[in-house]
Structure formats: C-alpha cells, structure tokens
C-alpha cells in the first residue's frame, strides 16, 4: 500500500516536471530577454516562413553540407573593430583587483568551480575572484541582460547557446583580442570547442568545460535482462532493441526515460541528433555561414526522428518524465522503485553529481559502480556530439585592470592543471588535450572510463563547420518553443503539425531578432 502511494506520488511529481527535490519551489521563472512586443508583420518575413506543413524546401537546405562550403569570410569582423584587451594592465596596478563572477552551476559543478577559484585566489595576491551563483543558466542570462553595464559582473559564465546574443550585445571583450594581445597558445585546444564560442570568425568566450549528452544506464538492469552491462546501445535503433529486451524480460518497466526539457530532450538533444544524421538545424549552414533565417527541423528528417522517439513512448519502451525542470527527473526515473527505466540521456556534466549522490547512498540499492555511461545514441549508426557546456566571458568597460585580471583568471582556469582537476571533479570534458597528460585526470580517465565518454565522442565527431550545431541569435527562445512542440509530441500529438507550428514561431523569433540587431 505504502509503495503504491509512493509510486503515485513520484509519478505525479514527474508528471509536473518537478522532482521530489524541487517540490514546493517554483520552477525557474524566466523573463523575456528582449521585449518581444515588436514582432514584424507577416509580410516582412523571410520567404521561408510561410512554408506550408509538408512542403519541401530547396534540396540544398536539407542535404548535409558538402565539404565545398565557402569559408565564412563574408561575415568576419576585424578584431580591431572590437573592444581591446589590455592584458598587461595588471602589472601596472597596485593592490588587489577584486573580480566578481556570475555563474549558474549547481551541485558538484559548483563545488568544482569554487575549488578552482579558491586555488587561483591562493596562488597569487594580485587578483581575488568572488563567485556569485545566480541559480542557473537562465537566471544568469536574464539578470545579465536586464542589468546596466555597471551592475554587470566582471566575468560571467554563459552556456554555448547564448554566444550570438552575447556577441550582439556588445558588452564583452572578445577573448580573441586577449589571445592575440598576449600571444596565448591555443594549439592544444580542441578546435571545435573554440569554434563553438565563435561567431563570424571571432572567439568571444573561453570555454571552461565541455559537456555533451551521454547515455546513463543501470548495469544491474542490463544484467537482469540478459544484456552485456559493458555494452550500451550506440544508436536509437539499438536503444529500441535493448529497451524491448529489457521490458520483455521484466528487468525494468521501461527501457529509457526521456524528457522534453529545454536544455535536454526538448531542445538540446534535437540539435545533437540532427547533427548526428548530418542534417542542418537551421539554414545558412546552421547560421555559421551567414545569419540563419529559419529553422529546418520541421523537414522530413526532424519529423522522422521525433516520430521514432514518439513511437518508443507509445510502445511502452520509453517513459516521458515531462519538462524535467530541475534536470533530475530522468535520473530519478532510473531509481524509481515501482516502475524504473533502465537508461536515460543526460549531460555529461552531471556525472560528478550523480556519482556523489550515489556515493552518499541517496538511492537505495544502487551504488556508484552500478551506473554505466555510454556515448549518446542517435539516429545515425555512430554516436557524435556537439560542443555543449560553458565559457568564461570578460565584461567590458570595467577598467583595464579588471580586464587584465579577468584574463589572468581565465588563463589559470584553462591551464592543463586546473582543467585536469575540474574534469575529474565534474564529468566535463577538458577544453584542451594536454589536460589529460597531467594528474588527476590522467589516472581518472584510465581508472574510470565513464569520465572519458564525453571526451571521446567529442573528438570522434567530424570537424565540419556546418555540423557544429546551430548558432542563432534567439537560440534560447527557439529552444523554448521547440521544447513545447516536443512536449506535445511526447504526449501523443501530431509530429508534423507540432514541428511546423514550432518552426513558424521560431522563424518569427529569428526574424524579430534580425530586425533588432
């Protein structure tokens, strides 16, 4: 009886997209970043916006980009036109420079950032960095956008999907200026991580940690279902097969837990999956050759993809936890005593937190070693991943000393030693390869292969500019409308209709953004 009540409670909590952890707290309240009051009239939209559902677009848009794409020279901004980076100003200053840094990291990721920053503060006496947690990425972005330049912090950590918006806000010193000014060597960095934070050939932020979605799965369930616990599925087709076997054997109630969260199953994963298939998410080479004018996920590849996932839910192989606002619902579904799922897809950045929670005995009957991590299964035969995660941005107009101090902190944070520690504590992949040559990551990657999954799939992904994921001005808002469509689809709605409606809204957002910037 009690178990029944508990199951009902958990199911109810999940249905709201709230975990028992967040019960009683409001979900993240986000404000519109820019007043969307001035949507342009329909007749000024780009021609693509009025496509009827199912209507085909010119083939060059839907086909994977060929290797003969023109380099994005037309939109490159000369560095000289942007804010300068006075990297030497620190030496002239006297006393300690105080820096404030806004971030939205949680749990073990926050602990690791604090550790890194404390170590930096202790390592020298010229700069002191104070971390200020703003709750989550959304809140950080909102507060940053709403604040006057004077009220903004000196350094801010943003996720990759606001790069275009940050660049357009003209409020930061491009990191590229600091790299050039100081002659900083980025040759050991993963090229794709630098590209992820660049627009029009200018690198705006310095990546701090790279995360991408990985598959978390319960090895005990795999064993019980007669599957090899060391071999996770590598494609959505295999996810389906594995799930069928798991459900049929009774090892778990569901194969995989899915969600429609903005920064997970509803938005981010779709970007990942389309790239995995070699399909574009938005036109103009995902917005990397020229600003995108419309999204393409309502075309056949996107429709097929989401129909496939919807079918998993309809067939009882996948369980939809809803909008997953706290980011923990999918994980808890793995630990649901009455109707567990065997697998879920989540950000690799959560690995440290998952391990800490399991190590602390949070989940009865599940130990640290029972959770396996595999590459993100997608529609294609082999897993690939786009660069996710976050980067450090230097806010401009704070004075030369602060800019120089911020650059000093950044060079520390991305040093091989600091990166090595950071990835060991969190599950992020390092932004530079040589971080793996030093301890503690050197032994961590050797002893616990789960930590290197995100890194391996990152370096295995093709280095094609147009396949590095979409870069849109209103990307966060576009993800928002996309996630609502995915939620509708996961609840049994018509796939094409939901995606077409979302695409129309997304295109309006893009057109509106273009009109304002």
């Amino acid at each position: 009886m009690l178990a029944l009540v508990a199951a009902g409670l958990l199911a109810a909590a999940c249905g709201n997209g709230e975990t028992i952890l967040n019960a009683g707290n409001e979900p993240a309240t986000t404000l519109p970043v820019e007043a969307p009051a001035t949507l342009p009239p329909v007749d000024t939209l780009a021609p693509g916006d009025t496509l009827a559902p199912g209507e085909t677009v010119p083939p060059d848009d839907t086909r994977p980009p060929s290797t003969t794409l023109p380099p994005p020279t037309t939109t490159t901004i000369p560095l000289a036109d942007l804010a300068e980076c006075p990297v030497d100003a620190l030496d002239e200053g006297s006393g300690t420079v105080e820096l404030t840094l806004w971030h939205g990291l949680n749990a073990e990721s926050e602990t690791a950032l604090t550790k890194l920053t404390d170590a930096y503060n202790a390592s020298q006496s010229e700069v002191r960095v104070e971390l200020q947690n703003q709750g989550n990425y959304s809140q950080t972005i909102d507060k940053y956008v709403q604040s006057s330049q004077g009220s903004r912090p000196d350094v801010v950590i943003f996720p990759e999907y606001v790069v275009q918006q940050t660049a357009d806000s003209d409020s930061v010193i491009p990191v590229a200026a600091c790299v050039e000014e100081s002659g900083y060597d980025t040759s050991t960095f993963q090229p794709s991580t630098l590209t992820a934070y660049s627009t029009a050939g200018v690198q705006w932020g310095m990546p701090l940690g790279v995360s991408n979605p990985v598959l978390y799965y319960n090895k005990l369930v795999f064993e019980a279902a007669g599957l090899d616990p060391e071999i996770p599925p590598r494609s959505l087709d295999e996810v389906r097969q594995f799930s069928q076997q798991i459900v049929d054997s009774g090892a778990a109630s569901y194969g995989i837990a899915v969600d429609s969260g903005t920064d997970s199953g509803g938005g981010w994963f779709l970007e990942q999956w389309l790239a995995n298939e070699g399909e574009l998410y938005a036109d103009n080479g995902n917005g990397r050759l020229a600003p995108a004018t419309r999204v393409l996920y309502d075309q056949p590849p996107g429709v097929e993809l989401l129909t496939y996932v919807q079918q998993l839910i309809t067939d009882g192989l996948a369980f939809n936890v809803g909008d997953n606002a706290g980011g923990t619902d999918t994980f808890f579904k793995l630990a649901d005593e009455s109707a567990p799922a065997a697998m879920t897809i989540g950000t690799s950045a959560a690995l440290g937190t998952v391990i800490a929670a399991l190590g602390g005995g949070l989940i009865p009957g599940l130990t640290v070693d029972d959770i396996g991590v595999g590459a993100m299964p997608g529609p294609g035969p082999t897993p690939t991943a786009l660069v996710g995660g976050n980067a450090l941005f230097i806010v401009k107009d704070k004075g030369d000393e602060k800019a120089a101090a911020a650059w000093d902190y950044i060079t520390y944070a991305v040093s091989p030693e600091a990166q090595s520690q950071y990835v060991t504590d969190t599950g992020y992949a390092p932004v530079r390869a040589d971080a793996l040559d030093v301890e503690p990551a050197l032994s961590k990657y050797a002893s616990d292969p789960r930590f290197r999954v995100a890194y391996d799939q990152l370096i295995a992904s093709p280095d094609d500019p147009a396949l590095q994921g979409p870069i849109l001005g209103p990307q966060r808002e576009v993800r928002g409308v996309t996630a609502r469509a995915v939620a509708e689809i996961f609840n049994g709605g018509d796939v094409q209709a939901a995606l077409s409606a979302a695409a129309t809204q997304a295109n309006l957002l893009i057109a509106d953004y273009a009109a304002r910037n």
Partner: protein
Amino acid sequence: MATENINFESPRGWRLAGRYMLLAVVTAVVLFPVYTTVIAALKPGDKVLQNPLVPDAFTLDGFSDAWTAGHLDRYLLNSFVVATVITIVQLVTSVVSAYAFAMLDFPGRGVLFVVFLATLLVPFEATLVVNRRTVDSLGWLNSYQGLAVPFLATAFGTFLMRQVFLGMPLDLRDAAAIDGVGHLGFLRHVGIPLVRPTLGALALFSFLGSWNQYLWPNLITTEDDMNTVQSGLRLLRSSALDEPNLLMAATIIAAIPIVVVLLLFQRQLVRGLTAGAVKG
C-alpha cells in the same frame, strides 16, 4: 477540539458524521505534503528516498547543515528587515492617505481615489522590468532599499483603511478641530486607536506578503548576502541538488516564522478578510 457525541439514530447525526469524515479526508490531503517534508527533513541524507513515508531514522543534521551551509541565518535576517520596513511604512502611508480620502474634502478627491485604485489592476509583473531598470539605475541592486522601496505604498491598504475611516462619525473630527487638534494630532489620539483592529489585519497582510515575496528579491539580488529566505531557498535548491533532507529542513526553517505569525494573529487575519465587507 471538543468531543461531541454523534447520535447515529438521527439523520442529523449521520450528516455530522459525514461532515467530519469529509473534513478528515481534506485535512489528510492538505497535511500530506507537510508530513512528507517533515519526515524527509528529519532523516539522514541516505535514507530519504528509502521508505519516504516512514519515519524510520532520525537526525537533526539536516537542520544544522541547512543553517550553516545554506546561510539561512543571513537570509532570515534580510527577510525580517525587509518585511518589517515594508510593513511599518505601508501602515503609515495607508493610514495617512486613507484619512485624506475619507475625511478631507478637496477638489478631485473622487477622481484621484479612482486613479489610486486603478493601480490595483496593474499586476506587479507588468511593471517588473521597468522597476528593475529603475532600481538598477539608482544603484540599489543588492540593497535593502531596492528590496523594500517599491512596496512602501499600496492601494489595497489605502482602500482598506478608507473604508474604516468612512465609518467613523465626522463629528469626532469636528470636535477635535474645535479643541484645536490638527490632522496628525487627531490621527494619533483618536483615529488610530479606533482603527487599530483593521490596522492589525493590514500589518499582518503586509508582513506575510513581503515575507513571501519571491520574484522581486530573486531579480534584484546577485550577491548571496542579500538574498531573502525565499530567493535563498531557490539558490539552495540548486547547490544542494543531491541533498533532499537539507532542502526540506531549510524549507521548514523558512516556514517557521510565518507559522508563528499566523498562529499569533489568526483573529486579526480573519477580521481583515471580512473588514470592509460591511460598511460601518
């Protein structure tokens, strides 16, 4: 609760029994989340998800961790300062403006009062962005001024107090005037003592309202030290993602002051809800 013998012989008895049954069910539904919160708060971290409804382990670690790691002491202080300032100033502005609207005759009084009331129709969310910009340009982010100033006057308070003053005989005011007492003197010696019950209700509403504010403090606070309890709880939720017992304990600590205030001032609250319903 007084025990009452239910007579099952009569239909009235059955009705009574049914009513209590219904009340019991509703009470159980309402108290269930409170029960689970308390249970989770009192368990050690590794037992919270194990038999979540059974109190099979007991520790106060969650509370001490929430207090120290969660900075709840600082958050509670901030909430207390802000709620107190808002309450006191709201009482003053409400009484003074209500007195003017009710007992003074000046041109445009009716129109002005309607305009005043119209502000009740503008939800706070509508002015949120503008208010934030204003507070930002005043340099009041992360300050008590920023947290309190936008709420120092309320049309609701003015309306409530005006109703009470309208029920007060004008003869009182005239008599006071003959004795040479000014407006403020009248308020101090006659007006306020007479409206004290309603004032108490208004104070309670103001305090509860400002204590429970979430959106505004969340928006204008970027430094940990200036968080109120509500925005602080949110931060704690993020950083203690994997410690449900600590979160539940923090929730309880945050709720205690409100529960105490409610228990102490229950009568005023009920009176406040009915005040103004009947003129006079």
